């Protein structure tokens, strides 16, 4: 049923090239889930987020010191290897220093005729962030107009915002089905669905979502659901991992990843000032740890998901060296454990030594007592 999503996921470059052939527009690369896609769509561009290739590589050593996260190096490596040669522009929305280096090195060494660094505030908790950010978004708007030679009217923005909202609404619907005792889709399918929405034209993605939803509601999987797990942490589109986890007696039913729920969870609320509405949507979304201070607003949200989706345990996924998440892991673990959710902490690298992770997950499931062995 999710074949199309898998096809997109596995052949993302072909999709992008076809898109370019069919549309008169350009592809712009994004490195972070905070990219204001509304403006990008309104400019007639296709936003493509560069996700992991999960291949060992030997090209980033001269550019990024190895103490930075494997993901940011993996992303740059794909650029250096020319995998994204169809990308004419790049944009980074301010988040962590790791991806920032990917962006600056990309700008230095990979041909592209457009690049934009968007100074998204990190302190989203101050009211001043709202006017500041809409101010910065206006600069994106003008800059994109200049690059594409296309005027971005409020009407175009409104349409783009509605397009993005529908995609978010539909994916929320799919996620809601995972609350059922026996979810009609696996965590792997959910992961691929969201991941593909980062580089597939929302029009196509929405159409496919609308097509599958009716049958999905009545779908029965001939597999044991087993332990209901939540995965939380850094960027994670490691399908191999989720496949492994779900092959040993469990199902991933929800997540808090920037490559998952965090990306689409909240909608743009329309109040008449479209630029401010878009700005507010990103200010108010479930935050990345690097934007989650002084108060911790991320934690109640995560706890809520665990309750709503009735999870038995939580796997905390940490991209090696990812400072923002490393700064959240300890208190997050305490929070979940004290609320009765056992946790398993795993560290991720570009490639994941399956054997070493498998034993941890197996032992974790044994610990959750999915099967009574005593």
């Amino acid at each position, binding site marked *: 049923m999710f074949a199309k999503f898998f096809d997109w996921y596995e052949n993302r470059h072909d999709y992008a090239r076809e898109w370019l052939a069919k549309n008169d527009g350009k592809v712009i690369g994004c490195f972070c889930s905070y990219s204001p896609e509304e403006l990008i769509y309104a400019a007639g561009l296709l936003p493509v987020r560069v996700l992991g290739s999960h291949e060992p590589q030997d090209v980033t050593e001269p550019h990024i*010191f190895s*103490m930075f996260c494997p993901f940011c190096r993996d992303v740059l490596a794909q650029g250096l290897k020319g995998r994204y040669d169809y990308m004419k522009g790049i944009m980074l929305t301010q988040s962590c220093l790791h991806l920032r280096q990917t962006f*600056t090195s990309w700008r230095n060494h990979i041909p592209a005729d457009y690049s934009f660094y968007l100074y998204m*505030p*990190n302190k989203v908790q101050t009211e*001043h962030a709202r006017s*500041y950010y809409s101010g910065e978004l206006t600069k994106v708007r003008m800059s994109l107009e200049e690059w594409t030679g296309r005027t971005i009217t409020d009407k175009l923005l409104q349409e783009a915002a509605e397009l993005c909202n529908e995609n978010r609404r539909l994916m929320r619907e799919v996620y809601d089905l995972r609350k059922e005792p026996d979810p009609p889709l696996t965590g792997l399918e959910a992961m691929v669905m969201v991941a593909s929405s980062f580089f597939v034209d929302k029009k196509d993605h929405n159409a496919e979502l609308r097509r599958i939803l009716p049958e999905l509601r009545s779908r029965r999987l001939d597999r044991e659901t087993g332990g209901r797990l939540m995965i939380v942490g850094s960027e994670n589109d490691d399908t191999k991992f989720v496949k492994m986890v779900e092959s040993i007696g469990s199902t991933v039913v929800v997540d808090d990843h920037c490559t998952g729920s965090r990306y689409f969870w909240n909608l743009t609320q329309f109040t008449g000032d479209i630029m401010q509405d878009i700005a507010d949507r990103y200010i108010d979304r479930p935050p990345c740890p690097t934007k989650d201070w002084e108060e911790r607003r991320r934690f109640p949200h995560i706890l809520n998901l665990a309750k709503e989706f009735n999870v038995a345990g939580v796997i905390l996924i940490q991209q090696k060296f990812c400072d923002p998440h490393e*700064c959240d892991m300890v208190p997050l673990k305490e929070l979940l454990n004290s609320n009765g959710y056992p946790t398993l902490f795993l560290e991720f690298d570009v490639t994941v030594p399956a054997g070493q992770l498998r034993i941890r997950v197996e032992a974790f499931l044994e610990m959750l007592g999915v099967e009574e062995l005593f």
Partner: protein
Amino acid sequence: MAEYKTEPLKCWQKAKELRLKYYKDYQNARSKGGIRWTGGAWSFDAIPAGLGRDVYNITGEPYAASLAFAKRLSMGCLEAAEAKGWARDLCSYMRNYWGSMYLRKYAFGGEYPDPDFCFQDHICCSHGKWYQHVAEHKKVPYFCIDVSVGPYRDLDENRLMFVVNQMHESVEWLEKTTGRKYQDELLIEAVENEVRSTSVWAEICCLNMAKPAPLDEKSMYSLYVHGTLAKHAKEVADFYEELRDEVKYRVDNHIAAVPGEKCRLMSDTQPPWGFLKIFRYLENFGAISVGSLYTFGLIGVWETKPDGTWGPRTTPMQRGERITSRDQALRILADWNLSKPEWQHFYDPNLKTEMMLQIVKQWRVDGVMLHLNRGCEGLSCGIMENRLGIAKAGVPVMTFEGNMGDEREFDEKRVTARIDSFMETLGVEMTEKTAGTA
């Protein structure tokens, strides 16, 4: 070989006393009914100064550096942080600081003195989170200002105002948190002291262009530190003026920091504090580190002069501007700090490379040693691109891995071996038969 005369710094003792006084004042603040707050070296410490003359702060980075210098204690702190489950690759200043907090041990004797509130700013991924944890652990209020509005080059009204607005917000917060009436004249005084101390420090660094260099970087670490502790304080600004005069005297009288100066180097990022002896090792080759973007530009505030050279930034007072209002003071404070050299690189390694090459040129540097510092995400940001840029400009450059605050990540044998090879490529030889011993 050319032997220069040398002599110890006269104000060295004063520097030490000033530093110790700072840590003791913080410790004893409460006994005098004063206020204690903690934050980062980048914090706008001039702002809490408006709460009164009995307000003392401790800044995390230099404090953690002092811990790192005390190896035994540091190891205990790092392990205490690891025992809590914190990743070993997190900022080693932060881990040292947290450890000292967990163990309730103060690097300067006695109990770790609890702060009354945390006042931080967010420059790297860890900064906002650092004191979020301190505030939670100590159950004290926390305010953090986001300065991530980009490099000075691209500063505009919208960006400046985002910072200034947060500053105004912070003043109200301080009043609410401490119940004290905020005094704008104290803020204005502190801002004037801060621009003075940071611009004078740049003057001092400029004097190091002289051959032989009057200061070596190892000594500069013990002098620039005051700016990281209390750049807004009058005694720091005054001390820097006194220091400037002495360094000027050394230049005029050709008093060298390293008598055997033959080769001038520049370092980058914080040094491995537990292994400053590598600088002594360099002296065996007549090599001296005359500074770095770090020692020059973390505290020093600079500007490009009409002739294209780099020099101390002209203060508002020097321009004849008088600060009369809170808003004006805060605007100046924000603008001043956002122009800090050791901040621009957070946004573009090319900016840092340009500045480093500027230093190479003006300070007549023969070679660059980049410390690939596993302890600091912020200053290691883009460092490999800097390496490429410097090499491309034809300047000899070497890298060595280490950690400013976690000695377990510094391999002395391997680093000295690298230095040996680098010295050979620079064509300098051991001047003494201290070969092989660091």
